């Protein structure tokens, strides 16, 4: 929280940000963001969520330093298998004598990778489909929205399962499958946003200047839809994590020996009664991280979506 104190210290900046008469567009935008941040900061759950998410990122970056053991290579099978949690092994060891804590720590990278890649793949697709449909309307809209509806008509996990079946198990394919099933809500959202701004004056003005449709969509419509879509993606992060873990649990996501949390639970399942920690620890990790994203998303929604803030 030292960052915040620094902010407080810098009264000049604060004033500039909170100025009622912003002198530039940049100042206005920064001011808006700062006010949102102030509101968000008051939301304790949201801050807790942000803390968890930041911790996840840090753990993922410094996994090599934090993890005391190799996540893939185990110790002596005869003496170090299935040890209960202790100071040497904070979360115990698994059936291949690997340190579970190290695996959980390295697993954060897999989780972050999934979340990150899904967001990177699904967001542009959703944005593009939604803005194109909204901007052109007519048959383009009908066709694109029909396709979107088809995807929305299916429970996400089940659709992802079917895609993974086609692509073969593996973390890359799981990511693709989740991305394929994630974009439709973003497309809908982007389309709705586009409809409200399509006939805005400044867009008309650009169009009159002879800009191509592609340029208008990418250069002027997409940026306006971006923030609401990004919030929506953040809200979905926990769901993405759970879907990835579910695929891993069913043996269709990340494959051994990769330390993916869902697959670790599946592997620990057969030791559940005698060696409870093997399945419990990675489950706790999923739970905490997903809770973090949910808290964060919930806080963001409160701040940024006035409708939900009644």
């Amino acid at each position: 929280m030292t960052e915040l104190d620094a902010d407080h210290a810098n009264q000049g900046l604060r004033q500039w940000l909170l100025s009622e008469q912003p002198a530039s567009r940049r100042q206005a935008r920064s001011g808006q963001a700062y006010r949102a941040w102030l509101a968000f900061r008051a939301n304790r759950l949201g801050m807790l969520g942000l803390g968890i998410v930041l911790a996840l990122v840090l753990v993922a970056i410094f996994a090599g330093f934090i993890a005391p053991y190799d996540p893939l290579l185990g110790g002596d099978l005869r003496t170090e298998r299935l040890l209960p949690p202790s100071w040497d092994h904070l979360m115990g060891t698994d059936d291949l004598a690997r340190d579970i804590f190290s695996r959980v720590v390295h697993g954060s990278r897999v989780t972050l990778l999934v979340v990150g890649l899904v967001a990177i793949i699904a967001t542009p697709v959703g944005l593009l489909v939604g803005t194109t449909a909204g901007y052109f309307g007519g048959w383009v809209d009908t066709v694109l929205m029909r396709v979107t509806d088809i995807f929305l008509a299916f429970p996400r996990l089940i659709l992802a399962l079917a895609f993974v079946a086609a692509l073969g198990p593996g973390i890359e394919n799981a990511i693709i499958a989740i991305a394929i099933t994630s974009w439709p809500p973003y497309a809908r959202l982007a389309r709705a946003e586009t409809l409200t701004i399509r006939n805005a004056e400044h867009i008309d003005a650009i169009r009159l200047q002879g800009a191509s449709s592609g340029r208008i969509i990418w250069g002027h419509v997409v940026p306006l839809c971006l923030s609401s879509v990004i919030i929506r993606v953040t809200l979905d992060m926990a769901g993405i994590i759970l879907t990835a873990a579910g695929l891993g649990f069913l043996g269709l996501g990340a494959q051994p020996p990769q330390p993916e949390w869902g697959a670790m639970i599946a592997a620990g399942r057969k030791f559940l009664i005698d060696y409870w920690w093997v399945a419990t620890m990675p489950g706790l990790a999923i739970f905490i991280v997903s809770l973090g994203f949910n808290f964060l998303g919930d806080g963001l929604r409160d701040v940024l979506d006035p409708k939900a803030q009644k």
Partner: protein
Amino acid sequence: MTDITIQSEGRASALPGWIIKFGKLASTVAVTLFGLLLVTFLIGRVVPVDPVLSVVGDRASPSTYDRVYLELGLDRPLYEQFYLYAKKAVTGDFGESLLTKKPIISDIARAFPATLELATVGIIIGTLLGIPAGVWAAVRQGRLIDQLVRIFGLVGYSAPIFWLGLMGLLLFYAKWGLVAGPGRIDISYEYAFTSKTGLMLLDTAMQGQWAAFRNVVSHIALPGALLGYLSMAYIARMTRSFMLNELAQEYIVTARVKGVAEWRIIWVHALRNAAVPLVTVIALSYAHLLEGSVLTETVFAWPGLGQYLTNSLQNADMNAVLGSTLLIGMVFVGLNILSDLLYTLLDPRVRSRL
């Protein structure tokens, strides 16, 4: 977890719009099903598993292999294969399961009641707990109870259900013995009654087999409660938001001024109006429990559609995957339509415009 879309655009239109809406609905369903057929067909062709091998196994002689290759029509062009596939699927013939050697449709008919029963118990628990919790949170908005309901709900969204299931089994079954283990019923009760509806709770109750009924209850309690929790989190959240909406309305203020008892205002006036969108929410979370059942059934060895689907997936039994995916999709679409219709029927504001 869920993404509800209460379609607001179509609702404003008058009678012809209603027909247009139906036409749209029908075309959506048709296009959706066709899309699914195409997707599943392509999936079946892309799978890096030799389909002949799945049929004949590893040890078959080369001549057996060639015969089956021809039988499966794998020598024909793709579009022809798809045509045959779609033609059969439309008549409800998804072929035979590689695993059970029975028509997919009969397999599904047997698995579906198990899922239906589980999801129904889940939604009942979810509704019974979710609505009061949501109302309570709305009435005490911003207070401790509101926060608790909120956190409880977010926890429900955040925990992987398969993990909760495993932990539940570990504690409630293995350690404390409070509930029965995986499966729908103990083997000793399995033949104590005849299966008529496929819903064991109903079957045992109707035939007066109370010992078996209790056994079924002890089996369904844990997975049912888990799914209940999942839907409760969502129902409570939506109830809260609908209630807040209603409580801010003019008529509530008027009622208060008139001196109507507070409990009447909440439970009769506000909740009755909030109930309309809530029906939609409940129908949708019912549909989503189908999704939740895939993982839950795996953990609880529940012989339902979810387990059937995952089993088929893991054994590259694509006929079965197509059949069950299609069915789940249809139920999903069906519940969506149903909730939409219910909304139209129940909401006086919408109804008056018809």
